């Protein structure tokens, strides 16, 4: 563990730029206060842990950040721009992506298609564009169709390449091709490329979790929010997930992580924010938080005297 934290310190030199600012956010449902004046921020390139007991408001916080709920009061700013009041898909295009605690893939779509939906967030083809495919562009050399590995004969591929060079390619086709390439790359990145064409619902549990991450990354976010990505994982799977989260950060993404597993949280995050009962009760380096008595009381469990109470 000490080794991990060492690596973290060398690697994570967080810019001072604040990516996301949660400013005194309060959220009420009817009479129930789900979030009460929650206040924290995330800096570029860091991995921030958000912990707290079940029902403390972590997921609600995520939902407020991704436009599912609008805060009753307070502000959420992303890169200086107001988030609340925008619709989910607009927020995604601003650069926030997320996964879900209870996996919400598109179950009847293949793994590849799931990621493609994410890729589409950055695609420009409109409905009419997809219909008429009239907007033609001259592909760059690297965007030309591949000769090998396309399932076509070499002659067919050559022909395709030649026509693309002469007549150009519709933007739709180009995007579709680029999307596929990117999606496959992401599947490889999270390590599930071998099942790319399986329906999401038929994937093993661990694959589904990783697929969610790949799908979220496909939207090219600057901030990636992971909601309990290790739920249901065994220790070995958790280890590899930790490695994955670090690699994600290494790609330049900022990560916000909700997680219960303390080992994982302690092992991977740069900073931790603790929520309880809709309120922030602590914030700081993992080591600070772990020794915070309020945190121990609320979350880590009371010292042994509980049994005698």
């Amino acid at each position: 563990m000490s080794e991990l934290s060492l690596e973290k310190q060398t690697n994570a030199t967080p810019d001072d730029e604040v990516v996301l600012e949660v400013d005194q956010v309060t959220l009420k449902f009817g009479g129930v206060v789900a979030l009460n004046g929650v206040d924290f921020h995330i800096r570029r390139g860091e991995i921030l842990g958000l912990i707290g007991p079940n029902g403390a408001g972590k997921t609600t916080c995520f939902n407020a950040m991704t436009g599912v709920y609008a805060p009753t009061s307070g502000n959420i700013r992303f890169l200086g721009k107001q988030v609340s009041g925008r619709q989910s898909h607009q927020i995604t295009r601003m650069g926030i992506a997320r996964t879900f605690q209870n996996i919400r893939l598109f179950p009847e779509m293949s793994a590849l298609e799931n990621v493609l939906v994410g890729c589409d967030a950055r695609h420009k083809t409109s409905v009419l564009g997809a219909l008429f495919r009239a907007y033609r562009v001259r592909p760059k050399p690297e965007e030309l169709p591949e000769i090998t590995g396309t399932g076509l004969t070499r002659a067919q591929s050559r022909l395709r390449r030649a026509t693309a060079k002469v007549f150009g390619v519709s933007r739709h086709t180009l995007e579709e091709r680029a999307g596929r390439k990117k999606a496959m790359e992401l599947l490889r990145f999270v390590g599930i490329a071998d099942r790319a064409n399986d329906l999401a619902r038929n994937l093993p549990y661990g694959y589904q979790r990783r697929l969610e991450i790949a799908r979220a990354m496909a939207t090219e976010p600057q901030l990636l929010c992971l909601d309990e990505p290790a739920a249901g994982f065994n220790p070995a799977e958790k280890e590899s997930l930790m490695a994955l989260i670090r690699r994600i950060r290494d790609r330049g993404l900022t990560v916000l992580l909700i997680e219960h597993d303390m080992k994982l949280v302690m092992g991977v995050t740069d900073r931790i924010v603790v929520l309880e009962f809709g309120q922030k009760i602590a914030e700081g380096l993992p080591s600070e938080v772990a020794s915070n008595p309020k945190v121990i009381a609320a979350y880590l469990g009371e010292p042994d005297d509980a049994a005698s109470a």
Partner: protein
Amino acid sequence: MSTTLLDRYATARKALADNWANGPIWVKLPIVLALISFCFYLPYLNILPFAQIRTDLGAGGTDWSSVLFLIVIYMIAAVGLNVVIGLAGLLDLGYVGFYALGAYSVALFGSPSSPVTEAIARKFDLSEGWAVPFAACIPIAIAFALVAGVILGAPTLRLRGDYLAIVTMGFGEIIRIILRNSEFTGGPSGVIGIPKPPGPEQDGRDYFNSLDVHRWYWLALIVLILLMFAVRRLEHSRVGRSWLAIREDEDAAAIMGVPAFKFKLWAFAIGAALGAIAGLLFASKQGVVEPNGFRLNLSFLFVAMVVIGGSGNMVGVLIGAFLITYLPERFRGFEQWRPFAFGVALVAVMVLRPQGLVPNRRRAKEFEDRRHEAKEAAADV
């Protein structure tokens, strides 16, 4: 395992579908071409026993080409409705409204005797018998349908499924009643003198006339194939992917950056446009329109076509439209028993094969899983 007829059908169908999906292009292309040529040849089909499928053999039978034409018209409508129901997952019970809009667009603008053209002719001092040419009526019809689709969709698409159903149903009725009650649409008698598509004169008659109906059928068939091609393009692009994602989990789709509302609206508008094209062709062939031709039960019929065939699957929807239009025509001998038989068949097909006759691959899987889950969940004694 008991191999009932139904099971055997399911296995055979699946094997065929799998074979097809994996088939190489040099096999698929000739088959598709052969099928299309066969469709074009159908009006002339006259060799027994194949010709038994003709509807004009028995006493009281009806003209085979006319039936084929009607089948293709309903196929166009069903393909359009399939975009709304099957692809985007929105229940539209007022689809007949768009069909009516298409029919009335060509009638009101194309017929020299319609109140609208008469009013325009008066206003701009145009010659007697002036009307918008047929070709120009097509964009008018499509534009009307698109606008209507957006007008209906924009405020209502935020409603949940069942509410959407009743609102669309109301919308379909509103259109019909307005057509019936208004002066400018010719009231309950409708409009006559609807223009026909232009074409070279043959044997002293217009190319598209009331006796050589096979030409109408060919025209409709070409339109259908073009539209199928267009819908297929959409289905296999980011648009289709977005529809599917919305259908599966709208919130998750929105969070993945899919502008759900916009795509739903597009689905509505595209469906409306296809419905309007079907209506336009129908009205043009018919020569007259009247509001009674666009009753609510036609909407239900369209939905039934989509669902019976297997919503989401283009082939399924075509088969659904075919069966529902063709069977009553073929078995005219049963006359009064037909609606009853239709009802029984509807219930039987749905209860025995709720996924439809030729379901979408994904839908079929989904059904299998749902059934599987249901079996597990119902731990009955």
